[in-house]
């Protein structure tokens, strides 16, 4: 086939498109095909780089990767590559990105129910205690251990009505 491009009618048509839905054929030159977004011209970029760009674009990773912690200066990309964070503030800086990861590593849990630092303020300690009791109460109910559940409910009420410590 030696036809000219149907679009510019100057260059040789080297891109042949058969549109199955519209049942038509089109013959374009490389430049016109690229302008219409039908092809991406071969450039110096390797296939790998193109693929990475495509994945980043699709997943929104590009924007995410460049996020930087204002305190220690590491980017989310550096964290992804190393698997280790740079400073405690990263949990603040990357929180929405880290939460799904933490959720997976902790069987779906994203609320700490364990110990709180002994130096922490009393209100924080009380809050943590209440959360822990509620969790235990739920577990007791799930296991149909109503005796324990009743005891935990009373403990909870007592703690909730107590003056803030």
């Amino acid at each position, binding site marked *: 086939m030696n036809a000219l491009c149907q679009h510019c009618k100057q260059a040789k048509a080297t891109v042949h498109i058969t549109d199955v839905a519209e049942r038509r054929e089109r013959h374009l030159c490389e430049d016109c095909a690229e302008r219409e977004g039908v092809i991406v011209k071969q450039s110096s970029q390797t296939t790998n780089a193109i693929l990475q760009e495509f994945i980043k674009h699709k997943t929104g990773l590009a924007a995410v990767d460049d996020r930087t912690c204002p305190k220690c200066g590491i980017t989310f990309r550096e964290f992804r590559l190393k698997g*280790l964070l740079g400073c405690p503030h990263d949990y603040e800086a990357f929180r929405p990105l880290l939460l799904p990861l*933490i959720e997976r590593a902790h069987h779906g849990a994203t609320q700490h129910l*364990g*110990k709180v*630092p002994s130096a922490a303020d009393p209100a924080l300690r009380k809050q943590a205690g209440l959360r822990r009791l509620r969790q235990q109460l739920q577990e007791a109910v799930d296991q149909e251990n109503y005796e324990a559940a009743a005891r935990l409910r009373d403990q909870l009420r007592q703690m909730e009505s107590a003056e803030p410590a």
Partner: protein
Amino acid sequence: MSLDTLAQNTGEWLHGSGPMSDVVLSSRVRLARNLAEFPFLTTASSEERTGVYRVLAEAISATSAGADAFLVDVEQASTLDRQFLVERHLISRHHAAGEGSRGVSISRNERRAIMINEEDHLRVQVLRGGLQLESVGSEVSEVDDALGARLAFAFDRQLGYLTACPTNVGTGIRVSVMAHLPALRWTKEI
């Protein structure tokens, strides 16, 4: 007290004693903590690293965390000494092979080992023979309380204790039991 003294004896967990010691060799609980005012070790400068070491070494020796224990400067220790500590399960391979200011506080009975500047600023380990996770857990918790009363650990209301690796975030605890199960191996059940 030095490593030579430890080498004369074996650690408590190697005595083959403790509950269910016919099956369970040892129970171990480890805890990860970081100081709130320092960056994690991935980005810490060597001065900051030394600072963490100094603050933690001081806090350990001033509290019950360091009772009946001695501190080994792992950075200065010989390759042989590091290998010995790894074999005794007192430091990790990662800690032995690491770089920069780091150390470990070891109790005489080798039950308690507190690593400074491993993956996290502080790694507390308690190791005992047989199956006794509760007593091991409470001993770790006591060390945590003693140090936590003096130091500000990195902590978040939602996420708990903050660690360099997000998989450890929360309690910072990992519990493990070493069991000897030869028959299951022979019959290819595991």
